[in-house]
Every structure is written in C-alpha cells, then in structure tokens.
C-alpha cells in the first residue's frame, strides 16, 4: 500500500491520542501510523511508523499540497489538525472516546473506538483517505466485507474491526479508499471500533459521535482541572500530566513507559526497544509527580499496582511488568519489518526483563513511603510486601547488577543502584518511625543503611578526579549521580555534589544545554537523555545552583518539546529532533518534578525574603 512518502515522518511530528487502555500516534499528515489494540502491549493494528509498506495506516487529509497546524483542544487529549490547502481548510479532530462512569452505566459504548471528525471550515477541500489496517503486526490475514448500513467489516483471527463513516469508503482488496469533496460547513465522521472477544458495539455516527466527542472533551477537561499546581509553567505541566495520564492503564493503575516500540535512539541504528510495559524504576518519581500535582487517586492506584500486581515474583521484583503485572514476554524481532527509517531490528517484548537491577527495590519502597508524606495509610498486606522487599535488599544490596541504564554487559557495582538500596533502607525507617510499618528490625536496617552509605562514600568517590562515579572504583560519571541530591544522600550544595555536577556538565553536557546519560561508549551516537536534563534543573533548584540558573535551564529544555508539548526519550542535541520511543512518560515525569522543585525553591526564597 502506498504510504504517500518514502519514509515515516520525524518522530516529533506525531501526536498521541488514547483512552487509558491503548494509544495511537497520528502524524502531522493526518496519518494514524501506530496503534496497538486492545491494550498498550497488544499486537499492532496500524504500524506504518515502523514499516510504511507493511505496517498499516489510516490517513485522512486533503489531496495535494497543504500546510498543517495542530493543537490539543485546551486541557484535553483531543487532537485537532487543520490542513490548509489552496482551495480551503480541512479540520480533523481525533480522539479515542472516554466517558464518565455514569454515562457508561447507562449507555452502550464501544470497547475501543477511534473517532475522526472531519470538517471543512473554509472553502472546499478534496479529501483523500486511505484505510489500511494490518493487524497482528501485519501478519494477520484479513477478510473484508462491505456490510450495507453496518459499514466495512475487517475480520482476522483474534479480532474484528468495523469502520463506519458517512463518507464513502470503497473497499479495494486489503484496504479502503475515500475520495470526497467537502464544502465549508460540511462535517463528516469516521469511527473505527475493535472487538477482540465479544460482539462489537458499533457507533451510529452523527449526533452520537458528537456526544462521544463532547463526553471525551468534558472527561479530559475535568481531569485536567484536578491539577492543583497553579504556578509558573502550568500549561507545560498540565500537558505533561495529560501525556502521563494517556500512558496510565486505568483497569490496573499501571503506567507504561511509552506506547510505542522500537522508535530508535539512533536513527538507522539498532537501539530500538519495546517500551510498552511498566518499569518499576519510574515508580518513585512518577508517584512524586502525581502526588505533587494533586492526582492522589492515580498515585495510590499506581502504588497499589506496584505492591500487589507484582506479587507473582515477590520478594524478587522484575525490572518491568505487563499492565496486568505479568512478566513481560521474551524479546522477539520482527524481521519482516524494516523499522523506523530503516532502524532495525523492530523488537517486541524486552530482553532486559530478567536483569538484576537493584535500584527498582528502592524505587518501590520510596514510592510507597510517599503515602506517609501525604497522610495515607498502609494496609497490612502492603506492609508485608514492603518488609519482604526490604529483606531482599538487605540480602542482595552488595551484589553487582545491570543498573539503571540496563546495559547488556557484565554486572557492575552501579552507584545509582547502591543509592537506591540506601533509599530503600532509609524509607523503611521513615515508615517505621511514622508508625506505618511495624515488626521491623530497626537496628539491623540502620546498620545496613550505614554500610551502604560508607560503601558509596568510599568506593563511588574518585578522589583523583574529584567526582562521584557511575560505578564503584570507576572513572566515568553518569547523569544518575545527580540523584544523590534528590534522594538526600548528599546535600545539593555540598562540595562533593558541586564537583560532581561540574564533572557531569563538562563531560555529559552538550553545547545546546542538554545532557547525555553517560559517555557514549555503550551506545555511540544516541541522543541526549530527556529526563537527565530535567534532573539537572532539579539539582540546581534543590540548591546546586541559583533559582535563576535552574529556571533558565528549564526554559531552554522547553524548546525541545514538539509543537504539541510532547517529549520523547531522547533528543538529538544538534537538530533538536525527538529520538526514541514517543512520547516518553519518564521525560514528562522529569518535567513535572522539575517544575515542582522550581516552585518549592521559589517558595523558600519568598519566605526567606519575608523573614529578612
């Protein structure tokens, strides 16, 4: 099937829509190029972003040349793309409908739906649409049928798709095309629903679609209004929160790292990983962001998921889990897909799933410890899990591991992993002292905490280079060392941190003010790491620099989002282009936490001024 160009658009050209169960990426050209249904980690239905020929896509745009302008409708995840051609303007509104619970209880609604509302707002426009689904990563054989008033039915083993539209779509072998002429004021609807197991619920279009759209806008607006943060950069914070919410799997409370797989960290290279899973590593910072913005329900649901959905493997915690808390599937390569702009291989599943990464234990305990900070309780079952995880840390902290960057190399003593083990012990003590965690051997935990502290201070400090190092007895620095201050292992303004910060900016900083996560021996050519740059802002805001420095760094980072305010995992420091899976929840968590740190610092300075 002809995609319309020789390559998929730049990663930053995509916008995302979703329904907190699955998400779709839509390009500036109005092409829906990525969608996994029914869940985030299900096989793709559209995958042109990873193979423009075989992946499948659904394009709705004007024929011929046009200019594109797009935005999210205010405070929502409803995407509006305006195409201006020489003859007129076409507006396409894309969303995956979400409804209030009361509405769901009283109305029959599709399980999964993508709604595309097409409206000619000015002049007249020739519309050019192609609908080319390629279910099961392009491997499923599809059976097409135009079924009278019901619409176009695409059946495949394991599911069914129904395309309904008041535009005329013509079925051609394995795809459908639409050529329509719209005049100003004309509004048409396309609804795609999918059902995996039961009978589908079909959308009647017209008024019903307008209701679905209105419900969706109201749902997202209401959700956005719950954001309690009212300070500077609120728009950016709300957009990041909305992006994060899209990655939240509502039925279980889990949050996936990204909705995509194999978008390359180096275009044309092989750093292509599947991120459609929940990394425990992201836990503590994600919970900080959610609590910090007032999204207590989401934060508590996530903690609940962390503590209970992982019980199949406890006390050992895996690096990542599926949205339902199952171990992630074995990594496989889709050899028949060419990858994003020839970035092979395309991977599904994740090979890092069985790595030993000790930092995840500290992340989980640290996330749960925030319940204390927000005056929430910990039930007995959760307390038991925390004690079990704590015991595992006590017994294993001294082991080498793969560390935060998941390098597929030999295990090492990573400073960040040891830091998080220290955090685990520290937070257990905090919970114990607050009376939330009983039956804890306080003395033993204290001893272990001290042992870890001594180990980090002695073996992670390189006296010759005057810096903390990424691994014990090492030489190189990495960006995770900035977290020594965030987790209060060291004061941000202390001599050691100041020197480490200098070393990090000298060795990992780019001319454009971004930060690599480590020196590029492990993966040459990859971009600067999104969240690491936001850690730098946080470090400055926490006392590593002045408020002005922190704010100015932050403003610079804002330039690297796309036109919709979305960030990927990495950024090409030379071109500013997005790299890696997109949008990346962790980067948005970084943005939120950076703003919260800036606000805290700002409040402190105002207090100080008032006292003075």
């Amino acid at each position, binding site marked *: 099937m002809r995609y319309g160009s020789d390559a998929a658009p730049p990663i930053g050209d995509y916008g995302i829509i979703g329904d907190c169960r699955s998400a779709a990426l839509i390009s500036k050209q109005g092409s829906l190029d990525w969608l996994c249904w029914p869940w985030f980690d299900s096989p793709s239905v559209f995958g042109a972003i990873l193979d423009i020929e075989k992946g499948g896509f659904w394009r709705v745009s004007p024929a011929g040349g046009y200019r594109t302008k797009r935005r999210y409708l205010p405070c929502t995840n409803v995407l509006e793309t305006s195409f201006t051609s020489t003859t007129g303007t076409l507006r396409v509104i894309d969303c995956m409908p979400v409804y209030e619970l009361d509405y*769901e209880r009283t109305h029959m609604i599709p399980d999964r739906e993508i709604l595309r509302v097409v409206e000619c707002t000015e002049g007249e426009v020739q519309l050019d649409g192609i609908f080319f689904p390629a279910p099961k990563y392009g491997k499923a054989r599809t059976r097409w049928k135009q079924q*009278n*008033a*019901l619409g176009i039915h695409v059946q495949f083993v394991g599911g069914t798709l129904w395309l309904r539209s008041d535009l005329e779509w013509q079925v051609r072998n394995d795809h459908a095309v639409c050529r329509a002429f719209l005049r100003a004021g004309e509004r048409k609807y396309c609804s795609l629903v999918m059902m995996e197991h039961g009978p589908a*619920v079909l959308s009647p279009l017209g008024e019903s679609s307008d209701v679905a759209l209105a419900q969706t806008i109201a749902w997202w607006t209401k959700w956005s209004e719950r954001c309690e943060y009212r300070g500077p950069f609120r728009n950016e914070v709300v957009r990041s929160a909305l992006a994060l919410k899209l990655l939240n799997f509502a039925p279980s409370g889990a949050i996936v790292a990204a909705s995509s797989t194999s978008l390359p960290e180096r275009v044309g290279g092989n750093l292509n990983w599947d991120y459609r899973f929940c990394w425990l590593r992201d836990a503590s910072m994600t919970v900080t962001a959610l609590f910090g913005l007032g999204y207590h329900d989401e934060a508590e649901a996530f903690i609940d998921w962390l503590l209970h959905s992982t019980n199949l493997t406890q006390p050992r915690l895996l690096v990542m889990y599926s949205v339902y808390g199952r171990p992630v599937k074995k990594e496989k390569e889709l050899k028949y897909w060419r990858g994003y702009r020839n970035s092979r291989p395309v991977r599904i599943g994740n090979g890092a799933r069985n790595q030993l990464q000790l930092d995840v234990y500290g992340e989980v305990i640290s996330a749960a410890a925030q319940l204390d900070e927000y005056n929430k309780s910990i039930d007995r079952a959760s307390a038991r899990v925390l004690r079990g995880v704590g015991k595992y840390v006590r017994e294993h902290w001294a082991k080498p591991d793969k560390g935060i960057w998941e390098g597929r190399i030999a295990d090492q003593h990573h400073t960040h992993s040891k830091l998080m083990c220290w955090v685990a012990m520290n937070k257990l003590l905090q919970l114990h002292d607050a009376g939330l965690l009983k039956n804890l051997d306080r003395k033993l935990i204290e001893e272990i905490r001290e042992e870890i502290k001594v180990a980090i201070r002695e073996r992670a400090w390189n006296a010759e280079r005057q810096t903390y190092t990424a691994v014990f007895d090492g030489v190189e620095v990495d960006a995770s060392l900035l977290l020594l201050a965030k987790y209060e292992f060291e004061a941000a303004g202390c001599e050691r941190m100041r020197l480490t910060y200098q070393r990090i900016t000298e060795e990992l900083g780019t001319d454009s003010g971004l930060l690599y996560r480590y020196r590029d021996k492990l993966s040459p050519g990859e971009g600067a790491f999104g969240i690491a740059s936001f850690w730098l802002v946080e470090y400055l805001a926490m006392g590593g620099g002045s408020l002005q420095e922190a704010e100015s760094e932050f403003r610079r980072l804002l330039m690297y989002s796309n036109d919709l305010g979305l960030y990927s995992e990495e950024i090409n420091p030379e071109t500013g282009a997005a790299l890696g899976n997109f949008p990346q929840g962790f980067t948005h968590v970084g943005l939120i936490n950076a703003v919260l740190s800036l606000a805290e610092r700002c409040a402190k300075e105002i207090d100080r001024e008032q006292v003075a």
Partner: protein
Amino acid sequence: MTIQIHWGNWLFWGFVASLALVSAESIAQGLGLTRLNLPLILGAALTPNRDRARALGIALHIVIGWLFSLVYVVAMQFLGGPTWYRGALIGLAQALFICLIGWQALPGIHPRMASETHGPRSTRMLEPPGFMGLNYGASTPVAVFVTHAIFGSVVGAFYR
C-alpha cells in the same frame, strides 16, 4: 405414548448440562474461535451496562439452558430414550436452527442490536451475528454446533 419426567434427575442434569454449555462457549470464545458471547447478548437485552449485562446474561443463559434441557428430555423419549448420541443429535438440530434462523431473526427481536439494513442507532449498537453467525468469526457455526452437541450429550448421557 406416556411421557415420564424424573424431575429431580432433570433438575440436576439439566443444570449441569447448562453449565457445561456456558463453559464450553466461554472456552471457545477464550480460544479465539468465535466472538459469540451469548451471556452478553442476552444481558444486553436487559441493560446497556456491559459489565452488568454479562453478569445478568450468564444467569439468564444458565436458566434458559436449564429449561431447554427439559425439551431435550421430552424429545429423547420420543426418539427411543435418552442416550448421549440422541442428545447430541438434538443439540445439532438446535444449533442448525440457531444458525439458519435464530441469528437472522435476532436483530429484529433484540432491543439493543443493530441491523444490517438500518445500521446502528443510538439505542441499537450491538453488532448483529449475521448469516450463520459469521460476523462473530468464521468458526462461529462450528462453535455453536460443538457446544450444543456437548449440551445434548450431557443431558442424554446422564438423565435417566
């Protein structure tokens, strides 16, 4: 010919057969052989809330199956007494009726099912089964035949 019903026996084995039918259908659905979900279809006639529809539908399906097993008991007496193969044969006959007539008539009866002629409306949005139930997957007729044969076999084999 006098028809004798052993009520206690029927109540028990009719219930077991009905459970077997619902379970077999659920397994067929879980295995991806068909998207036919009779509990959902039955329950959706009573409520638009799909979670509630499923729960209500399961209960309704078991009760209907239970009552239908009485028809099987009577029919087998006419055919020479209950045996598993006579039960299975009646099951196949019922499946044939469902596939050829039942599915076609359903959109006209079901208050929330869309029809191929008029398409979905705001109150009728459930996908219709289509001819032989093929809208729910190519193997749907097979699943209907097999599950009803199982149902009939259980009644025929155990009812005495």
